[in-house]
């Protein structure tokens, strides 16, 4: 596809240009001298691989923390916010006495391992409301808009962050339209609802787990890709309900999120088998259904999820196995990707274990897009949905 490659060269040039003034250093921190092999690994064409912030959270929460690069990534988390915070954030003022910033707030929230990114975003926006000195709904809305824009531009790769911000902004607009009698009650209501959002998210997971129980029958084999809190909740509930099933976990290279899931399932006494990512097609004939989570559900009904979901869905489709997606409804995002490269890739470092020559390019994207025709059903807290319902729900909300 000539047009694709041509535009890619352009994109690459732009990206490189954008990267130059950037000062994030992911290159080995001082203590990396101990791991000389790691230093070799980073002899990639791009000496400063830009790690997507979205990916850092995920790695932190979902990965089995064994690899060395992860510690680097974690170290980068502490640097990143400051680097970006000053440049992108207008809320932060030079005055050190009042150093409030949405992004800091968001970073604080998202460090909690059980909190979804959208919840952290909405909590951060609630903090904006609380610290705001606005006296009218309009002022507050403008302030929130600014904050959510800076939050969104801070990490453009996170779908659920964007979706969470949009959802909350929409709610604010609707609330002001709901004829609250005075500004203060509306304001306190907004804060209260935003703080409840954590509960909503927990409840959403429980609802999804309940809805999906009917689909897990005794004696079935479930293929799971990567680690997803919702999927874990589903399998947990099924195990509690004394369902007899076994789970195939993919390894989920390079961050090995599948290992984490298999550990958790082993704790629940669910029979688990680990597969390397390339063994999916080999084992598919034994599998009864594929269960995946989602980072984001887009308007077409397709999903954005960890790298490898697309190929698993393709294999499952060609072998006539159902692919079920468990995703909370606040992950519905107003995006319509037309192909894989249509979205800003979430980049991450990959440890190949051996030095990679600098001439060799490495595909570093952390996720892919699975088109809706390969998905059977979506389990959301709005109910069990066919992929085509997603756009309907989004249109209802944002139109």
């Amino acid at each position, binding site marked *: 596809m000539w047009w694709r490659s041509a535009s890619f060269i352009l994109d690459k040039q732009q990206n490189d240009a954008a990267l130059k003034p950037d000062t994030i250093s992911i290159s080995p921190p001082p203590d990396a001298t101990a791991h000389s092999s790691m230093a070799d690994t980073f002899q990639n064409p791009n000496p400063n691989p830009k790690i997507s912030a979205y990916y850092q959270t995920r790695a932190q929460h979902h990965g089995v923390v064994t690899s060395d690069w992860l510690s680097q990534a974690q170290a980068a988390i502490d640097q990143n916010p400051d680097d970006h915070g000053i440049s992108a954030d207008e809320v932060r003022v030079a005055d050190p006495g009042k150093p409030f910033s949405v992004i800091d707030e968001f970073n604080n929230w998202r460090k909690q391992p059980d909190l979804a990114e959208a919840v952290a975003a909405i909590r951060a926006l609630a903090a904006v409301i609380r610290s705001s000195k606005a006296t009218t709904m309009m002022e507050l809305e403008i302030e929130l808009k600014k904050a959510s824009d800076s939050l969104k531009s801070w990490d453009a790769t996170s779908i659920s962050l964007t979706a969470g911000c949009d959802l909350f902004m929409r*709610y604010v607009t609707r609330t002001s339209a709901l*004829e609250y009698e005075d500004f203060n009650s509306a304001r306190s209501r907004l804060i209260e*609802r935003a703080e409840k959002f954590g509960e*909503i998210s927990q409840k959403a997971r429980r609802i999804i787990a309940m809805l999906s129980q009917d689909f897990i*029958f005794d004696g079935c084999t479930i293929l799971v890709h990567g680690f997803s809190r919702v999927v874990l909740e589903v399998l947990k509930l099924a195990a509690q309900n004394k369902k007899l099933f076994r789970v195939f976990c993919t390894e989920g290279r390079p961050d090995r999120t599948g290992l984490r899931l298999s550990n958790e399932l082993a704790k629940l006494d669910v029979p688990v088998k680990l597969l390397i990512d390339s063994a999916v097609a080999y084992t598919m004939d034994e599998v009864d259904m594929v269960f995946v989570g989602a980072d984001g559900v887009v308007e077409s009904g397709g999903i954005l999820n960890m790298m490898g979901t697309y190929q698993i869905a393709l294999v499952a489709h060609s072998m006539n196995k159902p692919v079920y997606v468990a995703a909370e409804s606040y992950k519905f995002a107003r995006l319509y990707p037309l192909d894989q490269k249509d979205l800003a890739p979430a980049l991450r470092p990959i440890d190949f274990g051996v030095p990679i020559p600098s001439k060799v390019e490495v595909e570093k994207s952390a996720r892919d897009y699975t088109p809706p025709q390969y998905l059977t059903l979506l389990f959301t807290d709005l109910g*069990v949905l*066919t992929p*085509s319902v997603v756009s309907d*729900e989004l249109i209802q*909300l944002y139109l």
Partner: protein
Amino acid sequence: MPDVQSLVNDFLNQLKKRKIEGSQATAKQTAELLRSFISQHRVPYTNQAGALIDAVRTVGEQLIAANPVEVAVGNIVRRVLHIIREEDLSLATDAIAGMGLSAASDDEDDVERDDHPGLSAVAVAAAARSTLRPPSLQTLLEDVPDSAAIPQASSSGGDSEGKSRSVDKSSRGRKLKHDVIEAINELIQDIATCHEQIAEQAVEHIHQNEVILTLGSSRTVLEFLCAAKEKKRSFRVFVAEGAPRYQGHLLAKELVARGLQTTVITDSAVFAMISRVNMVIVGAHAVMANGGVIAPVGLNMVALAAQRHAVPFVVLAGSHKLCPLYPHNPEVLLNELRSPSELLDFGEFSDCMDYGSGSGSSLLHVINPTFDYVPPKLVSLFITDTGGHNSSYMYRLIADYYSADDLVVKGRHVTRC
């Protein structure tokens, strides 16, 4: 006065013994039974809708359990529950609107009694209305702790109004029941006339000199074809006989009686004939929420043949056949095995099926399933009484007819599906 419980028991027996044929008859009788049940049910003065819903639910549970394969029963129970909720809501909205007016005119503290002091009456009504809709992204952030609370709150709001005028209360109770029964009558009417509404659309779909294939017999299909014939369309119909019950023969007879050019083929000849066919039109037993169809046995084969030759596969279904559940393992759980006598004569084969001889179990087995599951991707078009729809649109029709609460509550009882 006939006892309601004995009526219910009679109906339960008929369902259990599979005495009622066809989903339309089942739907109609279920609706009629629930109508007489509601009209004879005594409702308490407070929280009438809640009491009525509970009562209908207990009966509905028994009815569904009596024949879980006949999903029309469950559909009608859910429709009636939805009707009760809707009627209660419209009454409550009227009451709240009245209350808001009276509050503005005489006493202000009436509004303070409400759950949400900051909200206007309009907002409360909007919140109550949103509970009827299925959960959506819009309501995700809104304060709906558990959906049962809002109808309660709204009806208690109505009660607080009734406290001042106790005469009003009993009349409101009678009004709720009256409205519900009125709405159920409408529902029964809809079920009875769904054939005509579907048949009205026939001319849009059947064109001159076309060849239509159908399998088995369905009254909806018969009416549909005849409606096109009456509009002076001339076309030919291939009827697959629909073994083992051979209802296709009956359909062919009816069609010929109405002057349609008809050809009877065996079921096994479907693939051979499909290349000459312009459109497959069939009836359904039930349509599931994902657009999958529970249909007479043999239809999956027809659908696959149609897909192979890119022939449109059209399913006719009245709205009482729309089931708000998703099929899990439908080939087994939403199916029924009928008597082997439909396939084999006992006289001739009784030796092979004798349990007494040899190892104690017979060597010959007969399996006679009633239904097929046709996956949604094989269906080109659904024609319901509200028009033609894609299979991915079924969920939207379902959202119109059923309220989300009833799915969850009933979900417990229909885990078999």
